[in-house]
């Protein structure tokens, strides 16, 4: 069963004469465990598709099945429940400024009510995995841009979501930090068997993908599998 199946998804903003269609008959399948990059020019509808898959916007027409759940007509409550199984990584790290790195990573675990000992162990583990074991007590404003984004990755993956959605995760970073961040994302996703969908403009990170999807003018142009050989 694929993690994401989109069939004839259309989406418009506004109403009446101001109506502007963004997505046109989008069909897409993302198999479980794959890392998929969505590329294409700005304004092509990539982010809109991402927010639809992330259940942050209500569906209009077409069918979108995410983690076996049909989103069209799904209630806000059902969508919120599904969101517990999805990890988000944002262009700006979007960490809570009033929480330390540890406390930020702890948030998704608190949401599912995970108890103290197990939670602390998970946090220590994942902060270690992104190379921030020494920075758990620091607030976001005490960390560098790359470190913050790594905390954001730890936060997105700590609850072992089945799907991770990332929007331009390297846009705010220099090439070295960007490389580190996507490598860690890829490593953790592979370990956990998580499906990852990354929206990006950054050609430098295309090599982490199993598949690259081109979205332009609201339509899927191509969807190419990247051969295993390309990774090596």
């Amino acid at each position: 069963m694929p993690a994401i199946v989109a069939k004839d998804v259309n989406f418009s903003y506004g109403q009446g004469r101001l109506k502007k269609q963004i997505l046109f008959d989008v069909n897409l399948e993302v198999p479980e465990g794959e890392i998929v990059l969505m590329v294409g020019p700005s304004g092509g509808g990539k982010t809109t598709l991402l927010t639809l898959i992330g259940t942050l916007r209500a569906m209009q027409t077409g069918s979108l099945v995410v983690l076996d759940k049909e989103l069209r007509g799904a209630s806000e409550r059902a969508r919120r429940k599904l969101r517990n199984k999805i990890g988000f990584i944002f262009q700006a790290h979007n960490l809570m400024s009033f929480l330390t790195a540890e406390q930020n990573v702890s948030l998704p675990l608190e949401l599912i009510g995970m108890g103290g000992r197990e939670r602390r162990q998970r946090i220590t583990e994942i902060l270690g995995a992104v190379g921030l074991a020494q920075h758990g007590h620091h607030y976001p404003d005490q960390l560098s841009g790359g470190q913050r984004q790594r905390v954001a990755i730890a936060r997105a993956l700590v609850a072992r979501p089945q799907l991770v959605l990332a929007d331009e995760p390297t846009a705010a970073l220099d090439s070295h930090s960007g490389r580190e961040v996507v490598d860690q994302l890829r490593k953790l996703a592979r370990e956990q068997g998580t499906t990852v969908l990354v929206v990006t403009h950054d050609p430098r990170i295309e090599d982490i993908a199993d598949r690259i999807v081109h979205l332009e003018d609201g339509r899927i142009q191509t969807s190419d599998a990247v051969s295993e050989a390309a990774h090596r």
Partner: protein
Amino acid sequence: MSLWRRILLAWRVLKKERTRLLIAILGIAFADVLMLMQLAIRDALFISTSTVQEAIKGDLFMVNQNFETLIAPLPIERATLYRVLGHEQVREVAALYMAIIPWKNPVTRTDRGILVMGYDPYVNLFDEKIASRAEVDKLKRFGDVLFDRLGRPEFGPVPQLLAQDGPVTTEVNKVRVRVVGLATIGAGFGADGNIICSDTTFHRIFPYHKPRDIEVGVIRLQPGADPIAVARDLNAVTGKTGLVTTKAEFMERERAYWRTATPIGYIFNLGVVLGFVVGVIIVYQILHSDVNDHLAEYATMKAMGYGTATLASILLLESLLLACLGYLPGTLIANAFYTAAHEATQLPIYMTVERAQGVFLATVAMCGFSALIASRRLNAADPADIF
């Protein structure tokens, strides 16, 4: 998300902005001090107005049917009081004369109005806590009076002078009197101080006050008599010339006068409401800017799967933490003000458990209400906007 995790999160949000937290605590403390002071002064007023009545040992009281307050008493005829002796349940009666008159400070020689109460010192009229038997006995000497040690300091350091040099001589209504002892009554809103004397001394101070006119008639009943039933019997006879009330009614009448016939109660209640409103505005401002500043962060939490209700509950917990943090210094400051106000005014201003609890609940309500209004702003946190 467990309650404990929510409380921790609420505390962390508050803790991050030290200055804002401090302002919030000070604001709430200020609102609490305002409410506590207004309530204390209002309560002191109502308590102080019936201190004297409470100390008179009597079962029933006879006053003019238009009587409102002891500060402006209306006369009744002494003969009317004596008529009630005809009722078999009445054991004895006593007359109390009252008037406010200028008292000359023995040191500064300035005049200030003081309440004078005269009665037959052979009758044990007042409770021992107001004036001991030994002190009252001194009143049998013509021209001697007892001075209220709890009166305002403007009347002069009479207790100290009395302790150092013995009896203090001064003038009341331009008549010489000698202070030979002390009474314990307390300043009220109506009278700044009191003196007690015998009925004969009273008539010497007030030569134009007709001895057959009295201000209050004190009635004592046989043991086991029902005061309400006897009052009803007596009113059937004397009601038009002298109204008979129970002690509770007598005290309540006085308080009702200050509550309703004067704007004092209303003004203090307004002050309490004002304190509450100030608190709501301060806490709302703090919480609203908290939500506004962290809108993207709250939206991110929504993207993670946190519901608006959970976020609102965290906001509510923030407000409750603020309530507790502001209430503590607020009560401590108010308590210090109580002591200072009591020393300055001699009014019975002190903290009561009921008031402390009431204001705590008001603080919680104030903060909770602000959190509810501020939480509407959470709807503006749309996770779709942060991409």
